[in-house]
C-alpha cells in the first residue's frame, strides 16, 4: 500500500523519520510544487541507498562529476571505455585507471545522496508517494546512509526556514537600499545570487517578483534578502509580527476516572455482547 500526501501536510523530515523508525524499504517520490520536477529516494530497511533527481537514476560518472571528484572530460573518457554502462563497471574503470579509489567513490556517492536530500528540504510544496519494496535499477550503485543525521540536519534546515519566514513574513514588499549602511561596503563580498537580487532592487519590485524573475524559491530569496538585511545593505518595510505565541501549558495532573472499576467492568461486559 502506497503512502501518499502533500508536503505541506507531512513534511520531508516527518517522512524520513517515519521511514527510519519503521525500517521501511521502498521508493519515496516527491513532485515539487505543481511543476514537473521530481525526485526519487530509495531506502532499504530505513537507510537511504540511492537518489534519482529529475526522474532519472544518475550514473556513477555523473554523480562523481556533480560532487567534484571527476571532471566532465574524465567522466566522458570513462564512459567511452565502458561496455555495459553499469555503475559497477564504471567504478572498476575509475579504480583501474587510477582516477579514483574505492573510498573516493563511496564518499562521493554519500555526498551526492546527502546533497540531494538537503535540496529536497527546500521543497515546501509538492506531493509525495512512498511505494514499499521498490528498489533502484540493478545497474546503479547503492551506498547505505543512515537517516538519523540527515533528520537532525533536516530539522536544522527546517528551523532555519521557519526563522527566515518569521524574519521576513511578507514577500509582497519592495526592498530598498539602506540609507546609511552601518558597514564598510568595500569589505563586503557578495555572492552571485546576492548581486542578482541587488540588481532588481527598486520601489516597484516586490521580493516575490524578484524571486519569480530569478527563478528562486521562497527559501532561497528569504535567505539572500535576510543576509543582505543583516549586513545592513537593504531594508524591508516592517510588517506586523505574528500574533503572540504562548508557551505550551503544562498538562494538568491525570484526572481520576469519575467511576469505579466495577462500573467499567460492567460497561466492558455489555460492549462485548452487543
Amino acid at each position, binding site marked *: 500500500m502506497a503512502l501518499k500526501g502533500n508536503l505541506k*501536510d*507531512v513534511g520531508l523530515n*516527518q517522512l524520513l523519520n517515519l521511514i527510519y523508525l*519503521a525500517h521501511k524499504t521502498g521508493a519515496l517520490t516527491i513532485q515539487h510544487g505543481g511543476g514537473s520536477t521530481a525526485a526519487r529516494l530509495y531506502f532499504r530497511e530505513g537507510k537511504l541507498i540511492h537518489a534519482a533527481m529529475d526522474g532519472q537514476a544518475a550514473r556513477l560518472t555523473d554523480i562523481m562529476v556533480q560532487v567534484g571528484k571527476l571532471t566532465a572530460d574524465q567522466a566522458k573518457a570513462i564512459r567511452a571505455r565502458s561496455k555495459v554502462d553499469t555503475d559497477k563497471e564504471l567504478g572498476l574503470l575509475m579504480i583501474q585507471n587510477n582516477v579514483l579509489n574505492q573510498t573516493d567513490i563511496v564518499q562521493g556517492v554519500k555526498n551526492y545522496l546527502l546533497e540531494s536530500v538537503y535540496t529536497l528540504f527546500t521543497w515546501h510544496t509538492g506531493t509525495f508517494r512512498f511505494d514499499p519494496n521498490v528498489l533502484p535499477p540493478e545497474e546503479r550503485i547503492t551506498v547505505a546512509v543512515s537517516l538519523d543525521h540527515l533528520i537532525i540536519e533536516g530539522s536544522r534546515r527546517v528551523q532555519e526556514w521557519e526563522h527566515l519566514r518569521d524574519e521576513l513574513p511578507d514577500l509582497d514588499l519592495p526592498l530598498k537600499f539602506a540609507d546609511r549602511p552601518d558597514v564598510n561596503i568595500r569589505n563586503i563580498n557578495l555572492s552571485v545570487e546576492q548581486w542578482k537580487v541587488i540588481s532588481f532592487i527598486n520601489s516597484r519590485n516586490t521580493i516575490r517578483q524578484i524571486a519569480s524573475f530569478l527563478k528562486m524559491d521562497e527559501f532561497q530569496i528569504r535567505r539572500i534578502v535576510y543576509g543582505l538585511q543583516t549586513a545592513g545593505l537593504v531594508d524591508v518595510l516592517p510588517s506586523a509580527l505574528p500574533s503572540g505565541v504562548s508557551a505550551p501549558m503544562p*498538562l494538568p495532573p*491525570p484526572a481520576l476516572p*469519575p467511576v469505579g472499576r466495577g462500573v467499567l467492568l460492567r460497561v466492558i461486559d455489555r*460492549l462485548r455482547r*452487543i
Partner: protein
Amino acid sequence: MQTVKMVVTGPFNSGKTAFISSVSEIPVVRTERKISDGTRNLKEQTTVAMDFGRITVDKDLSLYLFGTPGQKRFDFMWEILSEGMLGFVVLIDSARPETFREARRILDTFRSYNNTPLVIGANKQDDEDAWPPDDLKIALGLDQTTRVLPCIATQKESVKSILLELLYVVLEHAAEDIPRGRKK
C-alpha cells in the same frame, strides 16, 4: 440511573457520526446542518453541536457517546462536551494526510482540558490510500504508549474494539491513580 460518557472527536469528515451510529442502540441524535463553505465537496451535511448515541448497560447504567463537531469554527463545543468524560477517541481519516495536523491539534486541545485516557482510531482502513496505524502514529509524532488502532467506523465490530480498548486504557489509568489518590 448512572451514566458514563465517552467522547468521539476528530477532524471534519473523519467518520465520527458513523462511528457512533454503528454501536448506538438508539438512532443517533444529530445536530447537522447543510454545509455552506468550501468543504461541501467532501460531504453534504456536518455536525454543528454534537452527535449523541447510547448503549444501555443494565437497568442502572448507560454509556453515552458524544460526537464533537469536526469543523474548527464549532470548537467552542469541545470543552463543554469533554466535561466529565471517561475517555475519548480521536478518529482520523487515514486516507487524508492533510487532516493529520488538525488531528494532532484536536488531540492536544483535548489533552489540555483534562489528561483523560484516549485512543486513536485510524479510520477508513478499507480505503486503499489509508495509512497503516503504525505509520500514522509516527507521522502524528505520538509517543509509544498512545494506542493507534485500525478502524472502519461503519463496521460495528471495529467500533466495538476501539471502545473496548479505550475502556481497558481507562482501567489501567484507574489502577495507576488509586494509590496516588489515597496518599493523603
